[in-house]
């Protein structure tokens, strides 16, 4: 442990010694000064008293002019301690003094009592001299001067100073001892605290505790120090905890981040492979779309060619048929039936009617092929109106038949009026044909509405058909009945289906054999309406 003046112990010792020295010194100095002054005052008073006494006793010797007596009296000053010499003057005239008698201690030369005396006390520090006159009236008659050694009176002061010096030394020693004791009780706990603090600092062990002794301020300090250590330790623990938590969290976050990064990389990888797949399938899709476009174009061309072909075929078929029919007519005109053998006439009739049938077939084929070729004219169409028109057209063919028409109000539809009229005409024609054997034919036009739109229907009470063959109904040349029983080309319903398909609609049929048939059909929407309403 380094010790120096700047250490607490040094400073304490220094302060205490200084205080002791100062106090004792100051008191000593004051006492000495007072004693010196008092000694001088005492010496002066003694000298003045002595001078007065000697003057009273010597006065008669002067009055009676006895200088020896005076000298004897002065010599009695031998016994007065400290007196060195005395001079007695007698006034001569008004202002002159003449020595009358004197005394001086053997071996000691007067210092002040030389020359002309001066009334009063004088001193040069070591010697003092007092002169006093005796007045009669206004004028002094005699003057006595006594010189004394002041050291005699100061002898007590020296002893006092010695006493003071002893006291000073004692006080210093006492101060040193006190300082040491005090230091012990003050600096030891402090030093202990310092040691504890150093240990704490050097070893970082905050579990270290200062010893608490007694219940003074140092104990309080130690307690406060310990509390501070505890607080620091707690803070340190908290700090460690939070640091550890922070590290754990950082670790967790880092792990999480790594996981995320891995996941992102995996996703990225996945994404890029998806992108590759997508690009590949996009390329594929584009190729397919291109192929599709090409085959679509080819299909359209083929379809157009087919329609043109069927048109020209039916057209070319019609010419010879017309010729056959014309020549048969010519034959019949030139050779009336009566002139021919009956068998020949019958055969001729069959040829004629077959010609008519073939004509009807060709006409139907032509109109079937025309459906795809004509331009659609979209407009609002009321089906009951079309039905009325068809009814009016057929009126002359239906003379005598009992027909019950039930026409329910149905929503208007959009389509090509001419084509839809053909639909209605074909369906009604069909229904009338197959109700031919009924006493009262019953035809009903109505509709059903569902989420997909309106489904119209035309129901009859005719002979119906076998539902097993319902799907064959709409194929070209498909017939479900014997042509001898019910004539027909087998194209009418195919035309109906083709027209509805061109409208984006469709048709189906329900029936039981012998219990009537019902044709349900939907008419699509015009392109602009379909565009506005995607349903």
């Amino acid at each position, binding site marked *: 442990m380094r010790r120096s003046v700047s250490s607490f112990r040094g400073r304490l010792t220094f302060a205490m010694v200084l205080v002791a020295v100062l106090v004792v010194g100051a008191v000593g100095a004051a006492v000495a000064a007072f004693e010196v002054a008092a000694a001088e005052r005492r010496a002066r008073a003694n000298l003045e008293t002595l001078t007065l006494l000697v003057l009273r006793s010597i006065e008669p010797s002067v009055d009676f002019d006895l200088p020896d007596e005076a000298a004897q009296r002065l010599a009695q000053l031998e016994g007065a301690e400290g007196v060195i010499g005395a001079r007695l003057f007698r006034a001569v005239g008004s202002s002159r003094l003449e020595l009358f008698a004197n005394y001086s201690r053997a071996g000691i030369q007067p210092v002040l009592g030389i020359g002309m005396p001066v009334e009063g006390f004088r001193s040069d520090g070591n010697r003092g001299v007092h002169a006093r006159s005796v007045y009669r009236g206004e004028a002094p008659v005699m003057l006595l001067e006594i010189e004394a050694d002041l050291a005699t009176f100061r002898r007590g002061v020296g002893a006092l100073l010695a006493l003071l010096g002893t006291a000073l030394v004692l006080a210093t020693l006492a101060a040193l001892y006190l300082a040491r004791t005090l230091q012990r009780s003050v600096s030891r706990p402090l030093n202990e605290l310092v040691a504890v603090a150093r240990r704490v600092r050097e070893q970082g062990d905050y579990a270290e505790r200062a010893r608490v002794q007694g219940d003074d301020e140092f104990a309080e300090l130690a307690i406060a120090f310990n509390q501070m250590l505890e607080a620091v330790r707690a803070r340190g623990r908290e700090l460690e905890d939070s640091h550890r938590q922070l590290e754990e969290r950082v670790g967790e976050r880092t792990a999480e981040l790594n996981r995320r990064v891995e996941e992102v990389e995996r996703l990225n990888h996945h994404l890029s492979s998806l992108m590759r797949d997508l690009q590949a399938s996009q390329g594929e899709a584009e190729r397919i779309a291109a192929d599709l476009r090409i085959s679509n174009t080819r299909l359209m061309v083929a379809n157009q060619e087919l329609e043109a072909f069927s048109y020209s075929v039916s*057209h070319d078929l*019609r*010419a010879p048929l*017309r010729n056959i*029919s014309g*020549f048969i*007519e010519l034959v019949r005109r030139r050779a009336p039936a009566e002139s021919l053998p009956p068998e020949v006439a019958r055969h001729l009739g069959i040829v004629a009617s077959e010609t008519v049938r073939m*004509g009807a077939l060709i006409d139907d084929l032509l109109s079937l092929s025309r459906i795809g070729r004509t331009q659609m004219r979209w407009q609002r169409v009321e089906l009951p109106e079309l039905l009325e028109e068809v009814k009016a057209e057929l009126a002359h063919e239906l003379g005598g038949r009992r027909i019950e028409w039930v026409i329910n109000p149905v929503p208007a539809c959009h389509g090509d009026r001419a084509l839809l009229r053909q639909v209605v005409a074909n369906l009604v024609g069909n229904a009338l044909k197959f109700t031919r054997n009924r006493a009262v034919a019953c035809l009903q036009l109505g509709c059903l509405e569902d989420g997909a739109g309106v489904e119209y229907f035309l129901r009859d009470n005719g002979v119906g058909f076998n539902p097993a063959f319902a799907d064959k109904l709409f194929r070209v040349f498909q017939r479900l009945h014997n042509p001898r029983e019910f004539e027909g080309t087998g194209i009418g319903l195919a035309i109906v289906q083709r027209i509805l398909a061109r409208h984006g609609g469709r048709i189906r049929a329900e029936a039981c054999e012998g219990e009537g048939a019902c044709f349900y059909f939907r008419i699509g929407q015009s392109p602009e309406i379909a565009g506005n309403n995607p349903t």
Partner: protein
Amino acid sequence: MPEVPRVLVVDDDPAGCELTLAALFEVMPGCLADACVDGIDLFRTLQRPGQSLPSLILLDLKMPCMDGIEVLARLRADPSFRSIPVVILTSSDLESDIHRSVELGANAYVLKPVDSGAFLELMRDLSRFWILWNRRARC
């Protein structure tokens, strides 16, 4: 004595042509009727020297080499044949054919019916109308 009506039938189908001629003779006994197998034959017939203009031409549309539309266009473009009534007698009901014929100045457009009785009726009506019209125009 009234002028004998003369009808030219232009049709590449010989049977059809014969039938048309037969129908004409049936409805107008005593008329003069000639058949031309195509447009070239028709113009040859028309330009034969010493021939009077026909009272009526029955013109088919679908013919090889020169079709009916071209024949009609040439007839209408030629000042000497412009006034001859031309009736298109065809089995084509294509709108384009009908429009074109009317534009070029066909006097009638008739679809060949398959029903021979109806055909005879038609021939009768047509030839009567146009022959009468012709006669009046020449007076």
